[in-house]
């Protein structure tokens, strides 16, 4: 029972860590990577809650809001850097 969510969280952490390395090491691609990071998290949320049968509009909007907020922050900091 514990293995499934752990794998899911581990996959999220690995994906985000890999994208973060690209973000920090390739300044020219930061804009694109920022969008990919936000999109990855949003899709991860949708997929995980879909599997759990807990995918509702409020959950979708929550992931959308957090992803959008993080992406916006990353894009602006990249533009200033």
């Amino acid at each position, binding site marked *: 029972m514990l293995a499934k969510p752990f794998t899911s969280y581990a996959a999220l952490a690995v994906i985000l860590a890999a994208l973060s390395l690209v973000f*920090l090491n390739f300044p020219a691609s930061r804009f694109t990577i920022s969008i990919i990071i936000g999109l990855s998290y949003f899709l991860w*949320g949708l997929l*995980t809650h879909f599997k759990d049968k807990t995918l509702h509009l409020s959950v979708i909007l929550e992931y959308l809001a957090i992803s959008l907020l993080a992406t916006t*922050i990353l894009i602006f*900091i990249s533009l200033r850097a």
Partner: protein
Amino acid sequence: MIKTLSHLFTPQPSNNYKAKTLHISSLSIFLIIVMISQILISFIGKNVPGVLGIASSITAEDLIDLTNQKRQDNGLTQLEINPSLTSAAMQKAADMINKNYWAHTSPEGRTPWTFFKEVDYQYLYAGENLARDFLDPQSVINAWMKSPTHRDNILSRRYQDVGIVVVHDTFQGQPTTLVVQLFGTQIGSALPSVDKGIQPAEAVLAEITPGEGVAGLKDKIPFLSSFQLTKAMSISLTLILLSVIIFDTIIITKKKIVRLSGKGLAHLIFLGILLILLLGIQPGLIL
């Protein structure tokens, strides 16, 4: 007061067992605040000189010293400062600022070599390194040394001369420190060059200070970096959200409250990664 704070930061019946700060409406407000603050920073940066910008400590003298230090460390002769190359670098910087491009070749197709020719520098070998938005000279050199092509320019045996300019100006809509470094060897020069004694940097280096040379330079040095301000604001917001999520998750788990919501641990991982990125990001681009 305590009731309001409790409503904002802890799950309870009044906020449907989810900290109000984590509601979609609150997250949307944060998003709007981030966007408005960035528009304001850009507006102030453009319209109120001396308030926001890049508080850079980069000087051409430091860059030439560090470049020659790297060459010396690798057993190479030191580059000599060439006034013609410095003039070409100045023209290249002015061209980028006036025509608003960040590239080795201008939108009209002018290559770096055009600027060499315009100052009558008849080159046998020539190279160009560009950098922008760095805060100190060591960071510029470190970034160039990490890039194979820029490193090749700095450590090339083919070059004898160098010209560097550092420009502080508004570039592509934001206050910027722009660095143009040109390398060259003139036709007829013997390679490898013999170290003839280096001309003092102060003599010919073109450190463009505000109000000189290039059109459009601002008259005041900014006292606050727009990058550092954006970074501080972003880190603060991320820390607030992380704290609220941790607090919210602990209370929900302790009280065994079942609610329809996103996964707290996932939000923590995501915002944790965001925090690491914000802490790790450094200003500066090279080309």
